[in-house]
């Protein structure tokens, strides 16, 4: 059975240089990023890492911009991305590592970032980890669908490519 999700602009995470978004599955009360925050909040051992991650998201958003090759890494993730036809530029889910904490995201450009879900990594390879492995697959599935909606014109750039415009009530089918 297919499930549907909608794009959510994260109103608490709109900065001078970066606008952050997430997606919310229709059966869930909160978007994936808030689900990540809610779950991680329960783990006392990572309070410091979670604080660092939040500050980092704010600082990048306010001062630096989301510079893909510098601030984000795609290690252990791209293996799960389906092959695309040659010459077609592919969108990939990236990883934000803070010690063992992992948050998966899509960097559309320096100004627009989707924050998905993640968790505490417990194995050497993230894709083998029961905590984060499913979120890597989920992130990659969402990225492929966002890519499709871009190609269909359901999601487009604003005039200076500092934000996105998308159809009201756009449903992403997974």
């Amino acid at each position, binding site marked *: 059975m297919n499930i549907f999700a909608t794009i959510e602009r994260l109103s608490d995470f709109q900065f001078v240089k970066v606008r952050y978004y997430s997606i919310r599955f229709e059966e869930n009360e909160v978007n994936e990023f808030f689900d990540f925050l809610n779950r991680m909040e329960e783990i006392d051992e990572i309070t410091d890492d979670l604080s660092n991650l*939040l500050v980092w998201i704010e600082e990048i958003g306010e001062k630096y911009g989301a510079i893909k090759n510098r601030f984000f890494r795609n290690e252990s993730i791209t293996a799960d991305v389906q092959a695309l036809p040659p010459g077609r530029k592919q969108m990939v889910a990236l990883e934000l590592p803070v010690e063992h904490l992992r948050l998966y995201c899509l960097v559309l450009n320096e100004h627009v970032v989707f924050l998905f879900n993640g968790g505490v990594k417990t194995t050497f390879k993230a894709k083998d980890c029961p905590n984060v492995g499913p979120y890597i697959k989920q992130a990659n599935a969402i990225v492929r669908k966002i890519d499709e909606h871009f190609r269909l014109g359901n999601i487009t750039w604003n005039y200076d490519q500092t934000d996105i415009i998308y159809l009201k009530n756009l449903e992403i089918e997974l």
Partner: protein
Amino acid sequence: MSKDKTSVVERLRAKIQPENRIFIQKNLEISEQITTLLRSKGWSQKDLALRLGKSESEVSKLLSGLHNLTLKSIVKLEVQLGSDIITTPLEASKKYSEIEFEYHSVDC
């Protein structure tokens, strides 16, 4: 406090300590400094990795702004880049006091 979707951000932001903010700010400033030095030398992250004897992903981690950089690793970077990455305010004031300025009058 109810755990609704709007309050989780407020709750977590309230837990952020000044040292978390300063840690990330300084970390990103160091990353910016290293990136500026790499650019001025025309080096890529791969070039730096080769000189440090590290993998490209290790260098990428150092520049992420999230890694807990040790003083030892900063010094190794300074040696390879041939330039200071961090300078204490005391050292900076000494350096700048040695600079001789020339003053010229400008007709407006």
